[in-house]
């Protein structure tokens, strides 16, 4: 099975970065090209539409997705010297991704393991799961890497360490005020 075109689908979640990086390395190894895709989910926009700023939010989301696509993620593809292009799609993410994979004749879909669906992910399964079950191509789900989890844990412990270093003087100061 020759993999000539890889669709990397993101919804802008943090874990998508891992998927983008992984896909870039794979595409470089296989000599495949990449289609980088981001989906604007109107269901998410709808939640705040009641506050009266749906159009502004859509514009903001579109801008943010474009920044991600054309910024760090495109840079990662250039680093790996991979041919790629970007596209932004709209609608329900899972069907949009499956449809785009078919339209673009992708041989493989690569996605992150957690999106921003939150509660709905628990109720009806993540976007990644739905894509896995409906796509005609194999789907690779890339989790946050062990190294990034370790980095996060380290960052947390450093933050905690600072708080601990900060706490004793406060204790001392308040103690000093007690007669």
């Amino acid at each position, binding site marked *: 099975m020759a993999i000539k075109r890889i669709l990397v689908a993101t919804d802008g979640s943090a874990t998508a970065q891992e998927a983008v990086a992984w896909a870039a390395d794979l595409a470089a190894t296989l000599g495949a090209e990449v289609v980088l895709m981001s989906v604007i989910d109107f269901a998410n926009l709808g939640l705040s539409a009641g506050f009266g700023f749906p159009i502004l939010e859509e514009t903001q989301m579109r801008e943010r997705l474009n920044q991600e696509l054309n910024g760090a993620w495109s840079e990662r593809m250039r680093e790996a010297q991979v041919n790629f292009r970007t596209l932004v799609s709209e609608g329900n993410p899972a069907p949009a991704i499956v449809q785009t994979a078919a339209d673009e004749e992708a041989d493989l879909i690569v996605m992150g393991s957690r999106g921003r669906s939150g509660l709905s992910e628990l109720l009806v399964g993540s976007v990644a799961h739905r894509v896995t079950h409906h796509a005609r191509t*194999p789907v690779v789900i*890339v989790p946050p890497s062990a190294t990034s989890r370790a980095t996060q844990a380290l960052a947390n412990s450093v933050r905690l360490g600072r708080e601990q270093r900060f706490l004793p003087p406060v204790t001392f100061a308040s103690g000093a005020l007690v007669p």
Partner: protein
Amino acid sequence: MFEQILLAVDGSQSSEVATQTAVGFAAKTGASVEVVHIREHDIIVSRASSGPDLETREEAGVLLSRVVDTLKRAGITAHGTVRQAQTSRVAHEIIAAADEAGADLIVVGNRGLSSFSGMLLGSVSNKLVHLAGRPVLVAHERSHHNGGDVSQNAG
């Protein structure tokens, strides 16, 4: 980055597609492939779905060596193991195998791998995606190759 692939097989159609996908990956990346087949020993579920005939040790061995031979014929370094687990622990057993092999990628079919619950929900591949902590490739029995006829399955 793509040195070791863990391929989990169960003889299902999607598992055949997973095998073909692993062949493609390994051939291009030079990765070696560790093949694992999990024999289930959850008596009640097995009876409910497929009658009293549990898969025998021999059947499991035949299934495994057929896949390993397919890989070797494609010029890929491959090795296979049959492991055993309760139906509810199939995904965990695959993850244990992936950990032992130091796999960079787990390749599975989205159906099968579990005699009953897996057929209904694809729960093994879902669990793997959540728990494996490494990239998981899920092959679909509908998967087509190079834009070919969707109705034609690989293998």
